[in-house]
């Protein structure tokens, strides 16, 4: 199973990418340096590292929100085929949940009736049925992030970028969202790049875990996750083995 993604066409190819943060005053800090990463179509890759290791910077470069200072980035299909979920839901309070979810379609000029139908279908898929007309402020944190996920999925992206999407949620909501995301990924088969600082979360979701180390942000190790899906039981010894493997690799980076 683990060899499959090497055969398929790649969805993302990153070569020698580096990024320097330039502040108005003070020295230039190198957030990323010499990052090489190839992600196969349909693959779920988790990027793990401590705060400040440049994982968000890498994701923003993939999203086209940031120009890399060095190196090349290829995203198959271009920006139109990329959906992004941010750490904050970033819903627009002046739109209903439905209009927030349908926003990408409105920007691309789809007519109201069609984008309404699409948005309602996606709200059902992410578990927001019945909340289409609600204002974002009326939703709980988890539901807001579900709406943000629906907005990212509505253009049927080939690649889904997620920047610590569950970082601000409580543990129970987070577990629920992780399970639902795994199911959605199994059903839709999009390529996912998922940034997180939670190792169990990464192991539960990903085919491969990429470890970044800070100052400057570099790929320290890549750990394959050969566990069968669905991975509901995180207390299994096999699961815990992979978690330990990732933790050791990260620990080795610190010493």
């Amino acid at each position, binding site marked *: 199973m683990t060899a499959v993604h090497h055969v398929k066409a790649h969805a993302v190819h990153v070569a020698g990418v580096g990024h320097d943060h330039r502040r108005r005053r003070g020295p230039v800090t190198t957030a990323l340096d010499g990052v090489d990463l190839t992600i196969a179509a349909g693959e779920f890759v988790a990027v793990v590292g401590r705060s400040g290791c440049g994982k968000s910077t890498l994701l923003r470069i993939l*999203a*086209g*929100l940031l120009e890399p200072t060095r190196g090349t980035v290829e995203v198959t299909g271009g*920006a*139109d085929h*990329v959906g*992004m979920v*941010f750490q*904050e839901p*970033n819903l*627009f*309070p*002046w739109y209903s949940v439905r209009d927030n979810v349908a*926003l*990408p379609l409105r*920007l691309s000029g789809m007519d109201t009736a069609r984008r309404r139908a699409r948005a309602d279908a996606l709200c059902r898929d992410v578990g927001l049925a019945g909340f289409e007309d609600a*204002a974002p*402020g009326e939703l709980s944190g988890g539901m807001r992030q579900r709406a943000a996920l629906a*907005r990212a999925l509505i253009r049927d992206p080939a690649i889904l970028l997620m920047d610590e999407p569950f970082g601000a949620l409580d543990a129970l909501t987070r577990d629920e969202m992780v399970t639902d995301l795994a199911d959605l990924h199994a059903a839709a088969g999009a390529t996912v790049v998922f940034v997180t600082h939670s190792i169990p979360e990464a192991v539960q979701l990903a085919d491969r875990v990429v470890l970044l180390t800070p100052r400057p942000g570099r790929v320290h190790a890549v750990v394959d996750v050969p566990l069968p899906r669905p991975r509901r039981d995180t207390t299994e010894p096999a699961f815990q083995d992979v978690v330990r493997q990732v933790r050791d690799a990260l620990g080795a980076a610190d010493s």
Partner: protein
Amino acid sequence: MKGVSALVGALVTVVVVLGAWTVATAAGVSALVLPPLGSVAAAFVTLVRAPVTWAQVGVTATEIVGGFGIALVAGIVVGVALGRLRWLEQAARPALVAFQVIPKVALVPIFVLWFGFGPTSKIVLAALLAFLPITMNVLLGVRSVEPGHRDVLRQLGASRRQVLRSLDLPTAAPAVLTGAETAIVFAVIGAVIGEFLGGSQGLGHVVVVAMNSLDTPRMFAAIVLLALLGITLHGMVAGARRVLVPWHTSA
């Protein structure tokens, strides 16, 4: 229930104030200083029955709305420009601070000299007083766009116009309307002071004429009418806010 208790509270306040007024006049305060409620009421009825009064109301209302309208357009344009262009804001800041601290009422003689005794000088003063609260609020509103919201639209490849429509304007709207609420009150002040100090028309002029002829009840009646005009205009702006930005918590 909250609305009911607020209404009761307001009623209690009105009753206390009117009660104190009645007691004061009954206790022998000169009618020249504080006329009895009854004579104010009578003067008010006489005032609103006279057709010429409504022409005066029209003049004052036109000055207020005209000045407010000018301030709204100018304030939005200047506020957006200053909010977007930091170098411009830095260049304009000393002028803005100076503009904020000078007593604009002191400029009335200049405006009378430049724009005459007619409504124009009052419109200019009303616009001048209303301009700053709108400008400052628009500036803050434009600045308060959340970077995360901007990222969403950038990632989706939205055009400049789409960003303006979907993000900049809705973000700035609550602040614009907050500024407008303050500004309409300032516009009323500007128009009335303009009428006090130079002119022959408007409700402010009615107040001054009544004062000069020692007709205190009529003066109070005209003030009540002015207050009602101010409350009505403010209510319209506040209502616009509830309709236009229902999502905002302060609405």
